């Protein structure tokens, strides 16, 4: 591919998904050409036996947040079943072509149910880890501190060491058997961990760790770093006024005669990394 291309991103919509509007906006800020595509547009039409849209036309596949199929049988479970069944091969070749996949919140839940994560040994079928009910038993909306693992091969977080993003979920507790978690750490597949105000990992402490995730895990990638899933919402930090402290920071700067340097929110960096990666292929 040449350097001049504009990476095309596909944002899934429909069946109770949401967050598509701000995800689309963030991708655009990041320099991608995003398209909102209803899941059914990827499926073969019964009459014509053809699909309106194909994954191969895209470089970045985004599984966004929401409540796919109402999530009553486990978050992301029915969506994973549907996609595996109808798009399994398309997704496999999408991965083989070295393209990028990101799953946010419900999308992360879908990726682990699809088996695309953690994808140990590049096997993308098995469910080896899970996202289950928050220890609090309740949905929570809160901004969290995130420690970014600079060792991880994750394409989306390259150059990042710390982030603040909102979590909004009732089923975000990362759970896996100890040996799987060891494997994740040994392969540097743990990308994001919930942290405290000092940037140290939360050690399970609520509210720094908002859901009881084992080892404070908030996001993981596959061994290649091209498939990334996270519970926090980078697309919800697309403008500096999204941050809970923005009015305090702005005031602090104005006392020093300064203004906010960039209006863009830090969450966009994750999408820009993806865009840059594709451009530089």
């Amino acid at each position: 591919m040449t350097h001049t291309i504009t990476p095309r991103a596909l944002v899934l919509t429909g069946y109770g998904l949401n967050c598509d509007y701000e995800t689309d906006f963030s991708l655009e800020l990041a320099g991608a050409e995003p398209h909102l595509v209803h899941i059914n547009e990827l499926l073969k039409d019964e009459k014509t036996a053809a699909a309106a849209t194909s994954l191969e036309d895209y470089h970045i596949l985004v599984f966004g947040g929401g409540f796919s199929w109402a999530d009553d049988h486990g978050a992301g479970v029915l969506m994973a079943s549907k996609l595996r069944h109808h798009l399994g091969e398309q997704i496999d070749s999408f991965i083989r072509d070295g393209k990028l996949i990101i799953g946010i919140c419900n999308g992360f839940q879908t990726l682990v149910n699809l088996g695309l994560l953690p994808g140990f040994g590049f096997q993308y079928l098995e469910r080896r880890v899970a996202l289950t009910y928050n220890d609090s038993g309740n949905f929570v909306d809160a901004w969290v501190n995130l420690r970014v693992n600079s060792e991880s091969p994750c394409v989306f977080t390259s150059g990042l060491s710390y982030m603040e993003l909102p979590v909004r979920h009732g089923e975000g507790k990362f759970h896996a058997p100890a040996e799987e978690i060891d494997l994740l750490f040994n392969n540097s597949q743990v990308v994001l961990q919930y942290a405290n105000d000092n940037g140290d990992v939360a050690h399970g402490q609520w509210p720094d760790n908002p859901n009881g995730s084992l080892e404070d895990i908030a996001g993981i990638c596959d061994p290649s770093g091209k498939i990334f899933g996270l519970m926090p919402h980078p697309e919800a930090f697309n403008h500096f006024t999204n941050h809970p402290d923005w009015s305090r920071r702005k005031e602090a700067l104005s006392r020093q005669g300064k203004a906010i340097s960039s209006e863009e929110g830090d969450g966009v960096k994750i999408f820009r990394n993806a865009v840059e990666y594709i451009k530089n292929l």
Partner: protein
Amino acid sequence: MVSRLEIRLKKELMDAEGGGITLKSREYFGFEVDEIRVIRVLTIDADLTQVQLERIQTEIFTNPVTEESSYSPIARDFDWLIWIGFRPGVRDTAGSTAAEAIQDLLGIKLDSDQPVFTSKLFEIRGNLTRRQIEKIAGQILANEVIQQWKIHSKDDWRAEDGIGFPVPRVILDHEPRVRAISIQSDEELRKISRERYLALQDRDIPVIREYFSREDILKERNKFGLDLPTDVELEYISQARSDHCNHNTFRGLFRYHDILTGHRKTVDNLFRSCIEVPTLKIMEEKDWVISVLWDNAGVGRFDDENHYVITGETHNSPSNMEAYGGAITGIVGIYRDPMGTGKGSKLILGMYGYCVGQREYHGRLTPHLHPRRLLDGIIEGVRDGGNKSGIPTPFGLLVFDESYLGKCLVFVTAMGIMPARIGSESSHKKATSPGDLIVMAGGRVGKDGIHGVTAASETYSEHTPAGHVQIGDPYTQKKMHDFLVEARDEGLISFITDNGGGGLSSSVGESARFSNGCRVALDRVPLKYDGLDQWEIWVSESQERMTIAVKPENLDRFMTLSDKHAVESTVIGEYNDSGYLHLEYEDKTCAYIRMDLLKSDFPQWEFDAEWTSPELRGLTEPVFGEPRHHGALLRAILSRPNVCARNWIARQYDHEVQGGSVIKPLIGKKRDMPTDAAVIRPILSSTRGIAVSQALNPHYSEIDTYNMTAATIDEAVRRTLSVGGDPNHLGGVDNFCWPTIEYHPNKNPDGKYKAAQLVRANWALRDYCLGYGIPLLSGKDSMYIDGNLEGPFGERLKVSGLPTLLFTVCSVVEDITSCVTMDAKFPGDLVYVIGETKDELGASEFYQMLGSKGLHVPSVSVEELWPQYLALHKAICEGLVSSCHTVSRGGLGVHLALVAMAGELGMEINLPCVQTAQELSVTQVLYSESCGRFVVTIAPEKKDGFERIFSGMKLGRVGVVTESPLFCIRDAGGETIIEENQNELKDCWKRPFGELI
């Protein structure tokens, strides 16, 4: 063959749902439960092979990491087992998505409409009695109106049988039939009205009879084989004439009499004189007002390309009966109003207001649900309804008062956004024309919400539907929402409205007025199950449905999009200009009514309204000396239920979705202080924003509802201004909740007084909307907030809710980056109080704590306050303001403290610097609830510029923000009367509900 799959979390995993129930069992009833674990049950009524069953078990319904499952019973080592399942006809979303997934995976089509049913098993461990288990089952787990339950003890449990194979399918062995009804006399029609729960007004009855006996009408009817009115027709008329659809109370005639002055006044139609006329007048002056007073919601201009849409309503009675179901149906329902406004809008925001009895109520009365359980259920209902709709919920209010034991209030408010134009057409305009097709989209029709289907008669027979309750389904509605927005943008929608109260009868009936007629084939309406009578199809309130007018040439494209979004849409008829509403069933006419019948002059409702002034009621100011422990007093007020932190509610509501959150529900250094108002950025590519806030001050009604209304409007205005809202763009929404105002010597002896309270509230609404230039973009009134509660001796006591107004003010913010939050930001900043403090502690939080009402309720002078509001806006726009906060319930003492606590900083306050109207005691200055006031902090170097803007106005520089955590207040003598660590104040403020998550 029926199979049953049981799924549970693996032993080593914490069962959060079970944990929650264990907690509630302790909280509500003091039961000591060791452990509760949940088993999900799928009953599959389909002939599947062993292989197929194993595939769906392993490939879909069992997570190998966290779950285990089996087709035979897996409950083990429990003391008690509770099974909870839906009653027939109750929407089982999980069942239908499971069926969808099974058919998709196996590539088969299951014949039955509802092949999969979900239910739950609860394994309970602990030493509990059957009666305790019944209490947990009936009062925490199950909602008897929509669910059925069974209890098994470990002794009577037969593991080989388990729970059997519950298949709660609706089977109505009933042949739909239209009945002709004889109405020879008024008495006969009155009797029918009673028997059929038509709730026809006595004064309407002659008008209705006269219509059906007219020669010309009869001749027309005979052409279609009709003679006597049919049940369909009477149901239609009763719906259309109901107070809900017609606002008969607000449009009534009030004979107002002030007993003290002897002044008498006849008020004809409160709606017209206090809402319509002022709003139209303001509309002439404000070009941003786009559409008001006729549609499902009001429309205002956001920018040149977009309009915003706003409306609000209540869902009190259903929530009072079944908190979760009522509340989720309320929030999901209000979201359909913006969807059905103009040619449809996209939802961008939701808000809530709850009025309930004290969470810790231990009084003598027994409400239907204890406030604690009621509030939990309401909170959870709005949480699921809002979050699963993908709509942010960034603001809400909660008021505790014993008077709401009779009936809780659940206010829900929704905002949407629409492009100003669709193609060449204005998006806020809509009409039906002859030839347009009538399309019903969304859910199917069942017996849901049909009046008269009572629990008593049908609840317990095995296959009869839970007719009288509805449970909102945000998933189905979200799909429909996405579909309709796309259809709108392609110009496929000529007219759209929602199916709420009255179902098709009101959505089709009202939309047909534009074309002046319609013909509907009721047999084409898709049903959840067979056996509904024609009238039931017509008035059913099954949720998640919209009625849309589609031009024939657009139908194919409309249906294609409907398929794409997996939404069911059906053509059920056609609009025409026949002048008649014409309903058919299998080609036989079952209703034929002139469109103008409902326009014909039904008699106006009439009320006697007798105002007994506060003085005449013997209200006086309490006599009290100055407290010696002001610090302790402040701490006490901060920890009162209506002042303290209720952060646990906001945290469960997604307020970030859609990516436009600017000012969040909880703000400040530790993000734990309630904001004055919410600000969102609905169009992400623009830095324009919407600021919106609400106020509730029902306690002032105990003195005078005129002042209550004035203070509530003023507070909502100030809240919106304090974050940076534009005083020249203030859109209002009025939501009244009032006790019954019809006088009855025994049933409602103070009805005349309550009627006068309503008149006075409306006068204030008129005066202050005109004063502040607030058009009422939307509004709803909900009467009858009374309940009859049982006392300890089996006696029943009528409890009427305080006359309550929830007032919403929305504004457009030019540049969100100039918005201001309420937290003190830097040590050394100057603290100001804008506005004058008066001897106005009547019905204040402080007096309430003393156990007295008082007399001097806050009053509002627009002339005095408006210039200060304009000045504040100027100061904010010029970037002079570091923090700004509205002084409301609790007074200056409380709100100065909140500003300090939000910034985790101290304050040095010199009380005499507060501008006062007269000589006031320290306590009066600290706890008066005078309107029009703000607490503002600014950087010292901005002092001159700031004070210049306010020159000649009521502005007091009252102190400074300090690094030290001490919150200090000095009196005139320079003596420190309060010196409290703000961290400790915050603890007091957080403690009451601190445990709740």
